């Protein structure tokens, strides 16, 4: 037991700045794997409810209202329904490949979270090739989609799979160029490879996810605003490509329901279908966290320059608690608006209980040690949540692209702009380095 206690203590020491996995701390790595898995699954469930509600309100509907107050229990009802539904494998399907495909997609979608940095000390592990690993493993999910479409031995899934492979391979190119221009920025102004380089070693970049955020911290700028507007354009390219990579509206051609029934997963039902659903949403969270890490400063709080200093640090550390208290307040407002009929008594009490839990979480977040530990996680999750809202917003706003339009955007617009931004970023970086050396000598 002694080693276990030692492991736990080694992390609770506030001076520890490395991530638990990177420190070789097996115990904390396992704890983080479980925490991240549970957190992402919970996020997917929340997204399921939020997407229906927000889309409904955008279309002036109510959305789910029946199961639980404001349909809050609808995702649970859906999950139960999917689990007990019959799992059909078509007679003409290639059974083994049909069986394996959903697991490929889920594995690819969840494995990438190994390197996602929720904070300087909150990651499962930190890899030297962090961003490369994320892009590589998330690109494996297309294999699952293609094999799913082929194994179904049916026309619509096959067309969906063909579209999906063409689309993903095309947009990966533009995505990669945008990512490279952000990685170039990590090598500028010194401080490139944190811990190894330093202010005296300019020109050393890093692919490590934690290193990329540290570089933004050291350069006092989010890469979104670096070399304005180059960072912004690279970010825009990534933001478009990531929607195409995750097969979401307006680029949801592989599962276009008005043309292909349900695209590549038409023949899937029950548990296997829910695996595709889980994978799609966790892939959305994964690419959003890549975007957050590369351009929006990862776990760093907003306005570090304009509102810097210890006082503002303290003020911003109250935001997580206040956010939860605000949610609790909203819930209690809706408790008061619930119908007064005795039929709704249990629902009203349940909603009040939910509000109380939110309020309690908010109060716990005000305790100083907790506040210091979770501030970075809160900012990271809040930024990812903003991206997830964007996904829903896109789906409520844009009509679906035609396939030739999709290809045109990918190859003729995003790719040349990405190349141009990459070259300009490299040029600007060299000029900046020369000027910096000029000043020091």
């Amino acid at each position, binding site marked *: 037991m002694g080693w276990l206690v030692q492991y736990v203590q080694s992390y609770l020491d506030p001076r520890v700045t490395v991530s638990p996995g*990177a420190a*070789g701390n097996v115990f904390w790595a396992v704890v983080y794997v479980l925490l991240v898995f549970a957190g992402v699954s919970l996020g997917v469930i929340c997204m399921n409810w939020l997407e229906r509600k927000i889309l409904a309100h955008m279309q002036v509907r109510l959305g789910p209202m029946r199961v639980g107050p404001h349909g809050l229990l609808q995702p649970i009802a859906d999950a139960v329904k999917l689990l007990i539904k019959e799992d059909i494998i078509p007679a003409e399907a*290639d059974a*083994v*490949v049909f069986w*394996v495909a959903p697991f490929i997609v889920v594995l690819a979608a969840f494995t990438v979270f190994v390197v996602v940095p929720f904070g300087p000390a909150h990651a499962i592990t930190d*890899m*030297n*090739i962090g961003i*490369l*690993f994320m*892009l*590589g*493993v998330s*690109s*494996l999910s*297309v*294999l699952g989609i*293609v*094999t799913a*479409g*082929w194994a179904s031995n049916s026309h619509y899934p*096959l067309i969906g*799979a*063909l579209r999906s*492979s*063409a689309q*993903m*391979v095309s947009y*990966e190119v533009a995505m990669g160029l945008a990512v490279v221009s952000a990685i170039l920025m990590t090598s500028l102004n010194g401080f490139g*490879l944190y811990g*190894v380089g330093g202010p005296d070693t300019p020109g*050393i*970049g*890093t*692919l490590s996810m934690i290193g990329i955020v540290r570089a933004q911290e050291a350069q006092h700028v989010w890469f979104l605003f670096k070399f304005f507007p180059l960072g912004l354009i690279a970010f825009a390219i990534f933001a478009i490509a990531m929607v195409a990579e995750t097969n979401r509206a307006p680029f949801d051609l592989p599962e276009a329901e008005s043309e292909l029934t349900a695209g590549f997963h038409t023949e899937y039902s029950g548990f296997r279908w829910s695996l595709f659903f889980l994978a799609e949403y966790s892939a959305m969270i994964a690419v959003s966290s890549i975007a957050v890490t590369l351009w929006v400063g990862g776990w760093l709080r907003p306005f570090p320059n304009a509102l810097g200093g210890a006082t503002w640090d303290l003020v911003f550390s109250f935001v997580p608690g206040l956010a939860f208290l605000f949610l609790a307040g909203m819930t209690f407002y809706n408790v008061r608006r619930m119908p007064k009929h005795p039929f709704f008594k249990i629902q009203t009490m349940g909603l009040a209980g939910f509000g109380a839990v939110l309020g309690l979480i908010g109060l716990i977040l005000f305790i100083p040690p907790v506040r210091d530990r979770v501030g970075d996680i809160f900012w990271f999750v809040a930024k990812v949540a903003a991206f997830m809202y964007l996904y829903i917003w896109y789906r409520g706003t844009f009509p679906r692209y035609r396939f030739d339009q999709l290809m045109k955007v990918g190859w003729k617009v995003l790719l040349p702009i990405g190349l141009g931004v990459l070259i300009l970023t490299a040029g600007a970086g060299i000029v900046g380095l020369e000027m910096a050396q000029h000043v020091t000598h």
Partner: protein
Amino acid sequence: MAPVATPFFFYLLAATMIIGGILVITRKNAVHSAMALITALLAQSGIYLMLYAPFVAGVQIILYAGGIMVLFLFVIMLISIERTLKERQFNHQWLIGIVAAAALGGLFIAVYTRGKTLFPEGRLTYAEGQNTQAVADLLYGPHTGMYMFSFEIASLLLLVAIIGAVVMAKKRI
């Protein structure tokens, strides 16, 4: 981080690769072959990771497993599987194949039995934490960049291949 259970992982990955490789050439269904090839390639990237070369492993996953194999599957899916399953399997190059396999096997046995005299003894310094930077330095570094020329040759070859593909695909330019 100190390596853990190295022999176990090596034999696991090597066995996966060999079984995958055998499946690639024995399956009649081309999609099954492609999936076995993907498994073998992923196991190979695991072996690169064990050799403290994370950058090569990452590139292996992105390029081969994520890029090239998707295009393979894309093409294979358009072929009628029923017809290929009925076709007779043929192999006109078994003689050359046996010679090549025997030569490779002989090389392996020679290295295995006399390896100590063939290679200089010494301990490697693992640059795991800066593998990417080390690769970049070897390729483009001002003092140590000795592979710049071969890198450029390789990219020129790729360009030729791209132009050739466009010329062959277009009927009228």
